[in-house]
């Protein structure tokens, strides 16, 4: 077919003038007719023959009502919106997908002369294009949008586009269109849709997405209309290619503090036990740290680990890790897009102070069956996907399970051999996509079990379902309606002390319904608005005595219920060609509800059971308290020149859900707790400013960002707090202020033989709990560093591709040691030595330094093959540094000895095998 096209093209230049000759007019009034039948009709009426390929028009139902039109107009009308285009050819008509044969050379746009060199050149050289895809014609493609004469003069046409993956047929989220003439563009939403307003005319547009080849089109706008563009995955670039970075991505993206990561880059990086952990990789980005190995939480811009919202296809995930934080709780192969919002958080998100981590899963290949998977020493995983109905309905199924259990039993250590651990996760998605409507269903389940000898048993699981219907209303409004359910539950049995042995089950449920709209008012103005409600139901469970000998008293930690309703509106307006202003507002009403018994305490005494003065009873669904939470979000984006911009943002957030944890790492029995009668929601204001520049010549992007964040009502736990003893959390929690500030520097080089990034962050996170009375203070009311206050963090991530089948990668990480409270002196109580500790977090453990390496070997590059394999060999902590996780003191035989505990103090070598059906580039 492509050869035919090339032939046609050459012919066309010579014969174009004769094409318009036969103009026999006819009338067509048909409904529900197949295109093949219609073309026969056209030939009968006008003697013009229509050439097309059967498979392109198979689904097409022709419905036209036309009087006195020529054959071409009739066919054009019949094909409207199908993505197919009709062209004249020797007096006959040829139907081609999304391409017009040129009748003449297009007017070339020379406006950008002083800008980047030759921005209209292709990103791939012809030779490489041929290498990858076979022979392809050098066609400058034209997109024709709307109908001639279909617009009212003087108004702008609203055009809606959809960006899809050429191979899998999946929508691409966050792909951009950049229109050179108006120096503006738009980004696609989760279903690949983007819209903008343009005056009728001819434009040069570039479509781009990270990890994909850019495409340039000449777009011809006549009136309101639609188009579809397919982008192709890019492969490793060769030397002669001129790359001018990703200017749209970085310079034009309107959100300061938004990070995106490509999944391919993550695959090649060295990872502990070969588990591709997107959350661990995110800690190499500026402003994000983790307090150590085996620690599930992330700390974003000096925030606690419960201040991050984590979504997988809109499902909130309340525990994001397997095996206590060593592994991620979901299969990396299902991830299509991963975004981290940490500076300016769009108004559609709320509820967590620090960040939003948003994962969008693959929707399933819409063209053909596809399978991929892998095996590493801990887990095996498999993803299958494919069309149920080609181009319309697709599915994706993923399963991953550990098989490490048998290994534990082989080990000659009584505690380990009697322990067992297992985890698994499954997910499945179904996507239905017809022109203006997309329906997607997604389900997720993860499960973990761990029993340490006969001391402890843990079990936890996440379950979630989301259903989304997206629809484009008219030309410029796109709406999405979602129903979401999520549940996280754990159960613990603690048998360490027979007398105090207990079992405890906990469950949090999240039910959400929401509607989100995106309205392109004009090419310079986009409005987003929406409304949603979340119903939280917590069953904090009962701490029950376990075993016949347990003397433990049963404690019912109680149930909680709350409604969180919000609405938001946000407008993004290009005030000037170089200035974009986004102003948004979000209003949330948080209502904890009965049934509940609440205690009142004497005003000037500690909140302890003995000081209870009154008991309040709230009936089923009765509001215990109403919290009104207005958030303001503002961002300004100044484009300083073609290669740089300055972004300012102000971000306000509220948080109603907290984690009850007294440990630095997130333990598997950490409970989530809602704000209630006593515990007020936290609130934060963040100010950030950033400078972004691309150095196109070197393929380098750079940024420097500053932030200052002030949080009030930050919940901090009293010394010795224990959340299993009492349902009344207010007796163990105090609320104070948190302040975080920092600077983040980032340099990234992409699409080169040697690529990667360097990030450096200086940031502080300080907490102050200075209530009026001594019992309402922590650290005597003085400010102290948060447990996760890491001032310096430097990460160097490099990958080198000597050839297409080999990648060498490394990660270097340096972090200041986390704060710690050390004993500073010793005294004797009846000859028992007792340690006196410093003020809270006054010291730091030694710095954390780690270097990892990996080698990725790709299978052969044959185009025709059944399956492609890759082998990844990695060494984690290659130099075997004992990075201390904690330093602690023990009194042994009267001596005070200090020890450091390292989670992983040796190099860990892993081999991983990954496979996928098809060839090297198949998707």
């Amino acid at each position: 077919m492509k050869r035919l096209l090339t032939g046609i093209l050459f012919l066309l230049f010579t014969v174009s003038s004769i094409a318009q000759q036969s103009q026999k007019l006819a009338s067509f009034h048909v409904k529900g007719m197949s295109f093949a039948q219609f073309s026969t009709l056209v030939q009968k009426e006008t003697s013009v023959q229509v050439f097309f390929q059967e498979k392109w028009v198979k689904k097409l139902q022709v419905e036209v009502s036309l009087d006195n039109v020529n054959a071409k107009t009739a066919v054009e009308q019949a094909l409207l919106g199908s993505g197919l285009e009709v062209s004249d050819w020797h007096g006959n008509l040829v139907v081609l997908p999304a391409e017009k044969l040129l009748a003449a050379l297009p007017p070339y746009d020379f406006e950008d002369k002083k800008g980047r060199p030759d921005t209209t050149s292709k990103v791939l050289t012809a030779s490489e294009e041929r290498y990858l895809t076979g022979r392809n014609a050098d066609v400058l493609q034209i997109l024709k949008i709307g109908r001639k004469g279909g617009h009212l003069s003087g108004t702008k046409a609203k055009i809606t586009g959809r960006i899809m993956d050429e191979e899998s047929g999946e929508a691409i989220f966050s792909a951009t269109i950049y229109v050179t003439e108006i120096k503006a563009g738009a980004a696609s939403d989760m279903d690949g849709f983007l819209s903008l307003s343009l005056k009728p005319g001819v434009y040069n547009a570039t479509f781009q997405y990270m990890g994909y080849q850019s495409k340039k089109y000449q777009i011809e706008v006549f009136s309101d209309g639609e188009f579809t563009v397919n982008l192709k995955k890019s492969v490793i670039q060769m030397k002669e290619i001129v790359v001018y970075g990703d200017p749209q991505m970085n310079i034009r993206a309107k959100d300061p503090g938004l990070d995106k990561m490509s999944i391919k880059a993550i695959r090649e990086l060295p990872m502990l036990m070969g588990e591709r952990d997107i959350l661990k990789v995110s800690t190499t980005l500026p402003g994000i740290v983790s307090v150590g190995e085996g620690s599930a939480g992330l700390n974003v811009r000096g925030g606690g680990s419960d201040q991050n919202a984590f979504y997988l296809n809109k499902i909130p995930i309340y525990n994001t890790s397997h095996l206590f934080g060593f592994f991620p709780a979901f299969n990396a192969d299902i991830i299509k897009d991963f975004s981290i919002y940490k500076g300016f958080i769009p108004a559609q998100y709320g509820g967590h102070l620090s960040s939003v981590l948003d994962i969008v899963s693959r929707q399933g290949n819409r063209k053909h069956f596809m399978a991929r998977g892998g095996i590493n020493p801990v887990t095996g995983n498999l993803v299958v996907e494919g069309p149920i109905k080609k181009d319309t309905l697709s599915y994706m199924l993923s399963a991953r399970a550990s098989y490490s259990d048998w290994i534990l039993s082989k080990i000659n250590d009584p505690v380990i051999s009697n322990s067992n651990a297992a985890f698994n996760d499954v997910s499945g998605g179904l996507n239905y996509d017809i022109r203006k409507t997309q329906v997607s269903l997604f389900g997720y389940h993860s499960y973990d079990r761990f029993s340490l000898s006969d001391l402890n048993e843990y079990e936890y699981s996440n379950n979630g379902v989301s259903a989304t219907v997206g629809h484009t209303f008219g030309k410029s409004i796109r709406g999405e309606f979602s129903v979401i359910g999520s549940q996280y539950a754990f159960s613990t049995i603690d048998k360490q002390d027979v007398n105090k042995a207990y079992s405890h089950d906990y469950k949090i449920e999240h039910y959400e319904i929401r509607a989100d709209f995106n309205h392109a008012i004009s090419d310079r103005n986009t409005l987003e608005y929406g409304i949603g409600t979340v119903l939280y139901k917590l069953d904090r469970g009962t701490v029950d005595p376990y075993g016949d000998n347990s003397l433990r008293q049963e404690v019912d930690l109680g149930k909680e219920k709350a409604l969180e309703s919000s609405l938001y509106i946000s407008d993004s307006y290009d005030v000037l060609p170089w200035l974009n202003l986004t102003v948004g507002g979000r209003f949330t009403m948080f209502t904890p509800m009965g049934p509940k018994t609440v205690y009142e305490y004497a005003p000037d005494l500690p909140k302890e059971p003995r000081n209870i003065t009154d008991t309040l009873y709230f009936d089923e669904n009765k509001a215990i308290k109403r919290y009104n939470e207005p958030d303001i979000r503002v961002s300004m984006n100044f484009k300083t020149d073609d290669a740089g911009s300055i972004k300012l943002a102000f971000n306000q957030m509220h948080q109603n859900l907290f984690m009850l944890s007294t440990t630095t790492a997130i333990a598997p029995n950490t409970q989530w707790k809602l704000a209630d009668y006593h515990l007020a929601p936290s609130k934060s204001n963040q100010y950030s400013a950033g400078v972004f520049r691309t150095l196109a010549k070197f393929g380098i992007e750079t940024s420097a960002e500053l932030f200052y964040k002030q949080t009030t009502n930050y919940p901090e736990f009293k010394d010795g707090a224990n959340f299993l003893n009492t349902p009344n959390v207010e007796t163990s929690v105090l609320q104070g202020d948190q302040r975080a500030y920092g600077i983040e520097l980032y340099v990234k080089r992409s699409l080169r033989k040697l690529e990667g990034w360097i990030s450096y962050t200086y940031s502080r996170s300080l907490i102050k709990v200075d209530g009026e009375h001594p019992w309402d203070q922590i650290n005597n009311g003085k400010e102290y560093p948060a447990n996760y206050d890491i001032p310096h963090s430097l990460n160097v991530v490099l990958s080198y591709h000597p050839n297409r089948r080999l990648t060498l990668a490394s990660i270097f990480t340096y972090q200041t040691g986390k704060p710690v409270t050390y004993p500073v002196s010793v005294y004797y109580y009846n000859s028992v030595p007792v340690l006196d500790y410093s003020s809270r977090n006054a010291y730091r453990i030694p710095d954390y330094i780690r270097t990892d390496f990996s080698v990725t070997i790709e299978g052969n590059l044959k185009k025709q093959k059944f399956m492609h394999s890759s082998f990844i060999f990695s060494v984690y902590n290659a130099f075997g540094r004992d990075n201390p996780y904690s330093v602690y003191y023990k009194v042994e035989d009267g001596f005070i000895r200090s020890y450091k505990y390292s989670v992983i103090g040796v190099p860990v070598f892993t081999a991983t095998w990954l496979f996928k059906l098809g060839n090297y580039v198949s998707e």
Partner: protein
Amino acid sequence: MYQNRHIFIATMLLFLMASCIQRFDPEIKSTDAVKYVITGQVNSGDDVQRINIGTSSPISKPEIIPVTGCSVKIIDSKGNEYPATDVWNGNYDVTIPKSELVPGNAFKVEILVPGGTHIVSDFDQIQSGPPVDSVYYEVQSLPTASPVEFTDGIQFYVDLNAGNYSCRNYRYDVVETYEYHTKYPIEWWYNGLLRHTLPPDSSKMVCWRTSTLRDVYMISTKELAENSYKKYALNFVDNQSSARLVYGYSLLVRQFTMSDEAFKYWEKIRINSQEQGGLYESQPMSIKGNLHNITNPDQDVLGFFSATTVSQKRIFVKDVPDLPIEFVFNCVIGSLPWGGLRGTDPIKYPIYLPQRSIWIDDQWVSTYDLLTIDHECVDCTSTVGGTTVKPDYWPN
């Protein structure tokens, strides 16, 4: 195949055993000031009550630093004042009539340190508690770092039965005493001159050593349905690392009632000292007791002043069934130091020499060769805390 499996397991071990614990000495700022430490209690069991005043010492050099010359008085909730006298080494003794040391009465301490610093405690109330219920032991094998080796010994327990009493918090002081012997009597020794005692002096062959265990043992029954507790584990004594179980071992368990404030203080100390060093360690904390520096409120005062009811029980252990003694007294026989006896630093006097022939490695060795033996081989008082005075509670 067999070998392959081993390689695989070894790889896995590498991962599982990757976590490690090592000695580590962080640097502590000298500016973290030395603080006053007040410890002491009034209890219903003793005639004379003792308060100790001192300062804390650096971690690197732990020592007891007494503060003398303070003016100390104890005041009860009825307003009675009992001045204390500075007896020795930071100790201040006071006599309170037994009629006042009853549950329900509360006490506080007021101290004036010579520099002028004024320290006051909160009132602490005496709770009523039961006598110690029973103290007993079980023979146990504990796993060691090596998977094939176990340590045999006895684990002591105490039961609490306080059904009829109001106090829910108890702390235990555990004091152990054991008898131990040297291997030989003193015969030849050198302190500048070579000495020979005949008949050999066996007066330092049998000793007793008493020490307070340095662990914090506490029971709180607040989370429990009943005010009782079965088999609260105290210390473990093994049969190989010391002579404890060879000639007789005695354990004294003293049970103190605690107010809620005292419990919170001790509980924090226990959390600080025990529950650390894992993945999910909780934050250690600086611990405030019930003492306040009135003169300089910013300066914390360490320690706790408590009022308590005390009860005690002693248990004696010898010849435990099913527990063979594996302790071997390793009497170190050394050759003469460089320079001979005369060349030895007098600080090391006396130098003990073995008898004419001694039993080494399953045979009699003639000691015409010049050998020396360790002090522990002939003089039991050379062990710290050892005394040749037999405790009066020791069975004959």
